[in-house]
């Protein structure tokens, strides 16, 4: 298996090189001029030129590219102008925030969507099936920022049961000592129950917002895949052999229906990670998505490049993990590199 993993990683290298080149060119093709933007409203042309020189943007593109690749090889992704910090450090500190939120949202979503999908598939055309359809359609058709603002309005503003939407922790708490970057896990490691509860409270609304959005693809995929499997011969055989309905559905049918669900999960996870910008904005979440968007608005090249590259690497790793999972779930699937 190790050989297979290595082979797959080797294959990812050309696509990563492509990503590096394309993001470099794309960011340069943005209409804005970072030097003029960061020179501020009271800058003379001279000041703008000075800043351009300091940023190295006065050099020809190929030279800029060579410098970028050289820095990248040393693990240096450059410095973000919008926040003034090295991009690599910022991504490392912001990625866990996004990942924790996305993972929790995804777990909540799976816990609801998978049973919902199974129940809908076992009782097609029933009231439950229609409920499933309505819930998923509503979930996917509500924009996340809307759901987010609505939840904040009800649970924070009107009812006052949710904490203030102020990011990962209430202002009067300090972050647990960093181990994984996931506050829930880090606070458990530090045996700090109060911080654990506080960060969990902060997570509930944004995670729910994401979960509502992610319900649809997972529930629909579970339902479709279960329907196909339930109609197959081995399920009929199992039923005919007198196995209890729960054994048939859970042990035989669901395990076989898991493959497309896992694929969908992978897709949904990577999609959410990059696309939960709006949720991050609404809940002042210091995540990677809002970081990239802010940088994009300011034509700040380095963070945009760093973000796209990180995402590309994550896609590669995630796809590899899913492929490995396939092999574990279904012995018939053997991955050829």
């Amino acid at each position, binding site marked *: 298996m190790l050989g297979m993993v290595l082979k797959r990683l080797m294959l990812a290298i050309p696509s990563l090189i492509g990503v590096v080149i394309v993001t470099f060119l794309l960011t340069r093709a943005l*209409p*804005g*001029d*970072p030097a*003029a*933007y*960061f*020179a*501020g*409203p*009271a*800058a*003379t*042309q001279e*000041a*703008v030129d*000075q*800043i351009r020189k*300091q*940023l190295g943007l006065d050099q020809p593109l190929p030279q800029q590219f060579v410098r970028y690749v050289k820095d990248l090889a040393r693990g240096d992704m450059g410095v*973000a*102008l*919008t*926040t*003034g910090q090295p991009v690599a450090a*910022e991504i490392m*500190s912001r990625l866990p925030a996004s990942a924790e939120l996305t993972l929790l949202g995804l777990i909540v979503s799976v816990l609801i969507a998978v049973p919902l999908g199974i129940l809908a598939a076992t009782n097609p055309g029933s009231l439950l099936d229609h409920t499933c359809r309505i819930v998923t359609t509503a979930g996917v058709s509500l924009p996340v920022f809307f759901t987010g*603002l609505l939840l*904040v*309005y009800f649970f*924070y*503003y009107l009812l*006052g049961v949710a904490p*203030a*939407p*102020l*990011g990962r922790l209430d*202002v*009067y*708490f300090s972050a647990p000592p960093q181990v994984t970057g996931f506050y829930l896990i880090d606070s*458990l490691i530090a*045996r*700090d*129950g*109060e911080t*654990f509860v506080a960060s969990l409270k902060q997570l509930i609304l944004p995670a729910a917002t994401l979960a509502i959005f992610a319900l649809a693809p997972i529930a629909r995929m579970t339902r479709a895949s279960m329907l196909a499997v339930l109609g197959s011969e081995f399920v009929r055989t199992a039923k005919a052999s007198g196995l209890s309905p729960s054994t048939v559905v859970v042990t035989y049918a669901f*395990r076989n229906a898991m493959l497309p669900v896992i694929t969908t999960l992978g897709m949904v996870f990577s999609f959410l990670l990059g696309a939960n910008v709006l949720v991050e*904005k609404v*809940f*002042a979440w*210091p995540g990677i998505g*809002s*970081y990239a968007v*802010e940088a994009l*608005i*300011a*034509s700040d090249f380095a963070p945009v490049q760093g973000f796209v590259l990180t995402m590309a690497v994550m896609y590669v790793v995630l796809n590899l993990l899913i492929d490995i999972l396939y092999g*574990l*779930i279904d*012995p018939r699937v053997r991955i050829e590199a």
Partner: protein
Amino acid sequence: MKRRTFLKSLSAAGAATALPMPAIWSSAKAQARQETLLVVSESGPNNVDIHGVGTNVPGYEVSWNCYDRLISHEMKTLPNGTQYYDRDKFKMELAEDMNVGDMSATFKLRKDAKFQDGTPVTAKDVKWSLDRAVSVGGFPTFQMGAGSLTKREQFVVVDDHTVRVDFIKKDRLTIPDLAVIVPCIINSGLVQKHATEKDPWGLEYTKLNTVGSGAYKMTKWQPGAEVILERNDDWKLGPQPKVRRIIWRMVPSAGNRRALLERGDADISYELPNKDFVELREAGKLNIVSTPFSNGCQYIGMNVTKPPFDNVKVRQAVAYAIPYQKIMDAALFGLAKPLYGSGLDKVKDAVWPVAHNYNTDIAKAKQLLAEAGYPNGFETTISFDLGFATINEPLCVLTQESLAQIGIKAEINKVTGANWRTELNKKTMPLYTNVFSGWLDYPEYFFIWCYHGKNSIFNTMSYQSKQMDAFIDGAGDAATSGNKAAYETNVKGFLDLAFADVPRIPIFQPLSNVAMQKNVSGYQYWFHRRLDYRSLVKG
């Protein structure tokens, strides 16, 4: 890994998540709420040193509170009770005495002033800091230049506690320019330890660390999320600030900033849409302080180098076609100071910003346009900065509608924030809206940048007029020599000319709005429009 063991381990992991909760509950987390002020705003600093490359406006706020200057301004009370900085009265800060001579000013430093690491503030630090401001380039150097402070030789160490600033020419803006944010005094010894050959001024170090003598020091900074400032208890240059700790959180969603204020979680915020401020004021649960921008206005500019706007009658026609009142009501919700419809043919006082005498008059606009030779109008584009779309977009849409009534078909061109400066600096946009405000609050200061024939980048209209230049230069000379009558004549002269020629149409003076809880007091309006934490009081 085997398939069956993997599937089993899945359920095992599920069971493991139900970990027992460690029962350690600390008690004193909420202790210091009374001495802590929670500030929420849209964006945070990208650099805490105002001398840095591309430091943004939130960064100025940190610099203002963490560093001291030689001098600062006294406060005065406006009729509505707001504390407002007094342009004409200076207060000593790091200096204990200022002696302004004919061609130089001498500052005696306080002997008890210490940097936050305990080293005393000496004349050497002052010279190094001012040298740095005129040398690093970019905005700080530009701002120093606005007060004729351009050369390192101008700053002379007389003895350990005395500094002399030599003037290269007589300029009444030199002393005020020493009280803005830029000439802050930095711990030179500490920064020099971190300076490198490539970075002789230690900009990389001060970008992340506040190394001044100020009343606050930054203890934590998570870019884009949070800044924490703690009071410097050794600060002796004024009464000790009441707030021990400032927690400044970035909350990008305006709706949530408002919700935080209304729920009483946030103590103070600015940068809310005008609509929210109006509603918050009506609700009456919070203190809302609205103060007009000093020396600033939003205007519609026209490129006077190209037809049709090279014709003064076309410009006047546009000035009569702007739907001023609609803009005030629909785009600003009344939260601005109108700069139109004065009812006076000539300006009365030598002050700026002041209202002009144009008001919406479509018939007159049509007539002027016909006289200019455009009876059927023309086509053009009106551009605005998307970064301030909440005001700019309705303003431009209303203007577009109104211009259509006199036959001018204006297409709207939205420019992203990152690109706006670039577009403006090209000076090719025919019609656009923009805001300009100057830190130094003197009419001739505004006009020398925006209307003078030396064509600075703020003269976005490329306006040229010998007569205008004569008035502006005349006002500057009169101010320096102290000739009050000549000064007033010249200021009124350039104001009247600017309104008659209308290369740009002032519409309103924006308001700086701050919302705070009822138990927060001590807000002061400063020319930079950011918060001064030193005067704030909670409870």
